[in-house]
C-alpha cells in the first residue's frame, strides 16, 4: 500500500522490455496508449496498429499507461512482452487522470516522434504512419481528423457542436479535436501544461502556444461507428472544459479584464438604478417600500465583488508572472530560429514557463 500512499508513479520493470529499452537504439516512434474508458482487447489493438508502423519501415516502442483500475486489461500484454515485442507498461500509483498519464508517458518516451493513441479504435491503422510522416516533415503536431466518417449522424452532430465551441474561440481551427489520435514532437507533449481534461484540446493548446499544427484525413475505424450517447453529466463537464479553455486562453495573464468587465457592467446597471431612484427621492417619492432599491443595491455590490475578485486574480498573476515568460521562441524542426549567439544554443526554445535566459530570473 505504501506505493499508493506516496502517490509516486511506479514503473513496472518488466525485465525484457526494461532492458531492451535501455540498450536498444532510439526508436523512431513512441506510441503512447493511456488505458482508460472503453477497454478493448489491448493485444488486438497493439497488433493492428503496430503492423502498420512495421510496414512503414519505422522502429517503434509502445508505452501503455494504466491506472490501478484497469490493471486487469494489461495482463494480456505480458504475453506480447515475453515474445519480445517493444512494449513498456507504466503504472500510475493511483488514479491520476488522462492528462497526467500522458505527461508520465512523455517523461518515459524515447522516440523521435510521439503518437498518442486512445486505447480503442478511432481511425484506421494506416493513418498512424501518415501522421508520423507529417511530423517528420516539419510539423510540430499532426492531428488525425476522422474523415470520411461512417458513424451515426448523432455522433457527428456531437463532434460538430464540440467543435464550433472549441475552435470558435482561437482563430485558427482544428477540425476534429475529438479523434484523440495525434503525432507530435516530444517537446510538444512535455512543454504544454496539461491537467484535468485539457488533453482533449491538445491541438488547440499547441496552436495557442505557436506550434505548427497540421491535420491529416484518416478514415474512421469501422469499430468507431457505434452510437455514443453519454449521461448528461459528461456533456456538462465538457461544456465546463470549453469554458475553462476560453477563459484560460484569453485571460490567464489578465483576469481583471474578464472580472472587471462583468463587474463594471453589473455595478454600472446597479448604479444607474440607484441614481434614478435617488433623483426620484429628491422629487419626494419614498424609497422604503420599493423592492427595486434592493435590486439596485444587490447588482451594485455584486459588481464590486466581481471587480474585487479580479483584483485578487491580478495579484496572484503578478506574483506568478515573476518566474514565468509569456512568450515562446519560434523553432523550426526543433531548432530555434533566432539569430545571434545567446539566442542560439542555450536551450531556450522550450515553453515560456521554463525559459530562464542567463539565469537572471529564478
Amino acid at each position, binding site marked *: 500500500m505504501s506505493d499508493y500512499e506516496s502517490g509516486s508513479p511506479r514503473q513496472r520493470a518488466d525485465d525484457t522490455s526494461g532492458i531492451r529499452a535501455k540498450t536498444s537504439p532510439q526508436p523512431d516512434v513512441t506510441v503512447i496508449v493511456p488505458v482508460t474508458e472503453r477497454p478493448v482487447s489491448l493485444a488486438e489493438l497493439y497488433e493492428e496498429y503496430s503492423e502498420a508502423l512495421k510496414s512503414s519501415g519505422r522502429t517503434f516502442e509502445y508505452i501503455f499507461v494504466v491506472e490501478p483500475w484497469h490493471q486487469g486489461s494489461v495482463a494480456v500484454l505480458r504475453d506480447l512482452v515475453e515474445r519480445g515485442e517493444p512494449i513498456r507498461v507504466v503504472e500510475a500509483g493511483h488514479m491520476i487522470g488522462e492528462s497526467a498519464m500522458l505527461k508520465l508517458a512523455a517523461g518515459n518516451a524515447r522516440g523521435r516522434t510521439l503518437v498518442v493513441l486512445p486505447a480503442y479504435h478511432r481511425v484506421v491503422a494506416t493513418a498512424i504512419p501518415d501522421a508520423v510522416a507529417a511530423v517528420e516533415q516539419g510539423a510540430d503536431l499532426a492531428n488525425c481528423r476522422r474523415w470520411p466518417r461512417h458513424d451515426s449522424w448523432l455522433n457527428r452532430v456531437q463532434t460538430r457542436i464540440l467543435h464550433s465551441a472549441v475552435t470558435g474561440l482561437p482563430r485558427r481551427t482544428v477540425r476534429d479535436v475529438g479523434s484523440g489520435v495525434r503525432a507530435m514532437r516530444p517537446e510538444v507533449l512535455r512543454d504544454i501544461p496539461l491537467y484535468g481534461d485539457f488533453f482533449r484540446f491538445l491541438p488547440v493548446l499547441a496552436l495557442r502556444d505557436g506550434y505548427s499544427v497540421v491535420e491529416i484525413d484518416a478514415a474512421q475505424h469501422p469499430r468507431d461507428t457505434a452510437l455514443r450517447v453519454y449521461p448528461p453529466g459528461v456533456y456538462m463537464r465538457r461544456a465546463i472544459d470549453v469554458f475553462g479553455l476560453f477563459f484560460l486562453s484569453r485571460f490567464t495573464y*489578465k483576469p481583471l479584464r474578464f472580472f472587471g468587465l462583468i463587474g463594471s457592467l453589473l455595478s454600472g446597471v446597479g448604479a444607474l438604478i440607484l441614481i434614478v431612484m435617488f433623483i426620484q427621492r429628491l422629487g419626494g417619492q419614498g424609497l422604503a417600500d420599493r423592492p427595486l432599491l434592493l435590486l439596485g443595491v444587490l447588482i451594485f455590490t455584486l459588481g464590486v*465583488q466581481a471587480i474585487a475578485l479580479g483584483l485578487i486574480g491580478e*495579484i496572484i498573476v503578478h506574483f506568478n508572472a515573476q518566474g514565468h515568460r509569456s*512568450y515562446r521562441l*519560434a523553432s523550426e524542426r526543433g531548432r530555434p530560429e533566432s539569430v*545571434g549567439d545567446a539566442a542560439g544554443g542555450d536551450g*531556450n526554445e522550450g515553453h515560456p514557463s521554463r525559459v530562464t535566459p542567463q539565469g537572471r530570473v529564478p
Partner: protein
Amino acid sequence: MNEPAPHLSIVVPVYNESANIRSLVGAVRDAIPGSDWELVIVDDGSEDATRARIKQAAEVDGRVRLIALARNFGQTAAMQAGFDFARGEVVVSMDGDLQNDPVDIPRLLAKLDDGFDLVVGYRVARQDRLITRKVPSWIANRIIARLTGVQIRDNGCSLKAYRRSILGRFVLYSDMHRFIPAMAVAVAGARVAEIPVRHHPRRAGKSKYGLSRIWKVLSDLMAIKMISSFRSRPLVMFGLGALVSAAIGLGFTLLTLLSVPGGFRSDMAYAYVFPSIVIVWFTSAFYLLLLGLIGEVAVRNETISGRTVFSVAGEST
C-alpha cells in the same frame, strides 16, 4: 561566438514591419557611434517578410540579432523576450516603426549616467491624430500619474533606457509595457528621469492600435494601482472596502429604524426592503474581508517561496 557582451543593447519589438527593417537598422547604425552595441530585433510572429528581412540584416551586420517568437504574443511579451536576450549593461527599448529617432539614444544614456535606473522619453511635437491618439493618451497619462504617484508625461513612448539591474527585478506580462515606469518604481524602486525626444510620423506600415484599447488600459490601470499600492498588503485595501460596505449597512440599519417608528408590519413593503439592503451590504463587507485574507495568503506564499516583495535600492561596496 564568444565575443564579449556589448555595453548597449537596443531592443526593438516588431510586428509586420517588413518595410521598416532596413531603415531601422540604418538609422541605428548612423545614430550610435562605435561598435559596442547590439540591436536586438524581436519578431513578434509577423506574417509578412519581417523575419526574413531581419535575418538578412543580421547576416550583413553581426551586431544585429533576431529573436523570433513562435506566434504573435503581443508587444509586452515581445519586449520581455528582448530584455531577456539583451546582453548589454544598458538596455534601450524603441518602437520598430521609426516613430522614435535613434539619434536621441546617446542623450538617454547620458541622463542614465547621472544616476538614474530608468530614463523615459516624452514626445514633443507629437505627429499623431488629435482625437484618436493625443487626447486619450493625455487623459491616460494624467490618470496613471494620479493613481500610481509616478509623474510621467508620456507613458506611451517606447523610447526608454534601463539599467540591466532594474530589468532583472520585474517581469512584464499582459499589456504592462504601458506601465513600465510605474512598475519599475513600485516593484523595483527605480529612480526615474524624463527627457524630451523627437517624434516622427509613421513612414511605412500601419498602426496596430485603435480606440478599442481604452477598456484594456482602464482595467490594466486598476490592476497596476492594486499592484503598486497594495501588493504587499492587499488586506488593507479590501479591509477598506469592507469597512465602507459595513458603514453603508449600518446607515441602512439606522434608516430602517427611523422609517418604521411604529414597528414592523408584515404587510408593508418597507418591512423587508431596507432590512434586506442591510443584509446585502453586510454580506458584501464580509465577502470583501475574506477576499482580502485570500490576497494576503497569495502574497505571503510568494514571499515565503523566496520572491521578494521589496527590493534593495542599491548596495554599497
